[in-house]
């Protein structure tokens, strides 16, 4: 039961995102780069929250694991950027496996609180060990960590075009991987666990393992986003590990439509544009976040694409 229309849309979106760089320039390129990276974060979150039905309040932890894993490796280890990137992903993978093993012993409300508390402990740890992490102030990556060579080509991350295309490449890989994961048999199992875990168990599945897989994939992809963010913009700081980050990724996913392949991209785009409009007015932005969280739960729990899917386009999932 492949989903050909969704696949066509996937290819079209990727082609459009590639083409758009020849039309826009300046600040919009930077904004779009950020959107793509944060969308990867939300796509990771969506695997757990949207497809598998487990609401985590602690995904900032995995984003931060990628960010610090990659950033610290580049800052202190002085390793090449691709290796730092891999280190960040590995850190997020290991951490999400361990946290998943513990947190998945709980459900619903307890699960939300447990993930929140682990993430909060992680955030506090970035402050406590500020001698290493730079704490609130953060660390700016040194010049040698702002470029790398790939196939003999020297690529400078100070170039907006290079950053955009790297972000797009990573986004494309994650998007295609998630297409394969969610639209095939594995995705059906995620949905089965979300809809009715007891029935799924009695059809011969180890529900705990399916959840752990979803959790680990979800955390690892969040870490991919974190590692990419840190290396692209050359800065790592504890604000990325804050509770607010976990709430934002939840909000991006809720706005776009949980359990839809493109929901995270749509939600991230809409919210980032909103942030840009409200930039400078931190309070206004946070009030908007608060009001949106309430409004979405009250009237719009399926988000933009989820509503479109339910009304008109069942393949949009």
């Amino acid at each position, binding site marked *: 039961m492949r989903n050909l229309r969704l696949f066509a849309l996937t290819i079209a979106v990727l082609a459009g995102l590639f083409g758009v760089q020849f039309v826009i320039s300046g600040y919009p390129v930077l904004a779009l780069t950020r959107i793509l990276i944060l969308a990867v974060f939300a796509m990771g979150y969506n695997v757990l929250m949207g497809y598998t039905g487990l*609401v985590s*309040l602690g995904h900032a932890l995995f984003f931060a694991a990628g960010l610090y894993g990659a950033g610290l490796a580049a800052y202190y280890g002085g390793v090449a950027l691709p290796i730092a990137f891999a280190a960040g992903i590995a850190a997020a993978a290991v951490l999400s496996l361990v946290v998943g093993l*513990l*947190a998945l*012993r*709980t459900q*619903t*409300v*307890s699960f*939300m*609180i*447990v993930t929140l*508390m*682990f993430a*909060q*402990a992680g955030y*506090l*740890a970035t*402050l*406590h060990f500020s001698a290493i992490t730079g704490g609130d102030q953060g660390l700016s990556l040194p010049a040698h960590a702002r470029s790398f060579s790939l196939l003999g080509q020297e690529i400078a991350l100070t170039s907006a075009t290079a950053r955009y295309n790297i972000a797009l490449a990573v986004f494309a890989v994650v998007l295609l991987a998630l297409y394969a994961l969610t639209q095939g048999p594995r995705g059906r199992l995620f949905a089965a666990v979300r809809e009715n875990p007891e029935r799924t168990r009695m059809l011969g599945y180890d529900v705990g393992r399916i959840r752990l897989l979803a959790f680990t994939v979800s955390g690892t992809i969040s870490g991919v986003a974190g590692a990419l963010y840190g290396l692209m913009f050359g800065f790592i700081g504890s604000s990325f590990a804050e509770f607010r980050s976990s*709430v934002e990724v*939840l909000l991006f996913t*809720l706005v776009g439509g949980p359990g839809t392949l493109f929901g995270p991209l749509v939600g991230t785009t809409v919210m980032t544009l909103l942030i840009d409009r409200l930039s400078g007015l931190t*309070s*206004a932005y*946070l*009030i908007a*976040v*608060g*009001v*949106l*969280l*309430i409004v*979405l*739960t*009250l009237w719009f*729990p399926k988000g933009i694409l989820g509503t479109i899917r339910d009304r008109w386009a069942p393949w949009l999932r």
Partner: protein
Amino acid sequence: MNLAPYLLLATLEGLVQASVFALTALGLSLVFGVMRVVNVAHGEFFTLGAVGAWLCAMLLPGHPAISFAAALVAAPLAVGALAWAADRLILKRIDYDPEATIVSTIGLMYVIQQVVLMTFGPDARAVDAPFWYTIRFPWFGWSGYKVFIIVVAVALVGGLWLAMRHTRFGLIMRATQYDRETAQNFGIPVDRVYAAVFALGAMFAAVAGVLVVPNSQAHYLMGHDPLLMSFVVVIVGGLGSLPGTVAAAVLIGMADGWLSVFFSPTLAKIFSTLLVALVLVFRPAGLFGKAVRA
């Protein structure tokens, strides 16, 4: 070096902490116990209590005891009314779905916090204690006002305990907590009980907020730590168990007092957050709670 004075001071400060924790956490615990929902905006109700105390001090010149007494009544009432409205307008409409409640109260938290920031401002503001009296120890003097905090907390906790046991409203709350459907069938207006419990829970936080202001100033982010500590207390004490909550508040308040003599506050908080997570994972009924019905 003689540690005794430090430990005595830590114990006294711990008792004050425990009182504030107990009040705040009882509000959270009451709401969870009866309604089975977690209110993430609970810390903001605490903040609003503190800001209310400051507002009363601004509006009512004269002896600080007058404005403080007014705050102790008015702030919880105002916060209770706000919580009542939040229950009617939000929680009731999502039918108290546990996950949706958490998400929407996170939203409420940001809205209240930022509105306080925009009106009250980013600075910490002090409020005078209603009275000045210093208890003299051989090594240090200690504010008599802090004894007042402990007394009020004990009175309110005791009052709640008696009300739960011996009043009609207490009986109705316990019946609703025991089984919502059956309570409904027996003609208990479950809707109104929920709104009242949610308001009552918020009022406990607000009272705690009023009480701490003379001690530690009002600030728009001051709700964070009480929220975290309420989670710790409620979860370690056993979700929804009132005696467990009080016991945990005393234990953790004291531990906090002692630990802060030796450790940095950040490290103490890391310890607390991990404790909450691990208790929920391995001892979901709390460290000394009985099992909670699903």
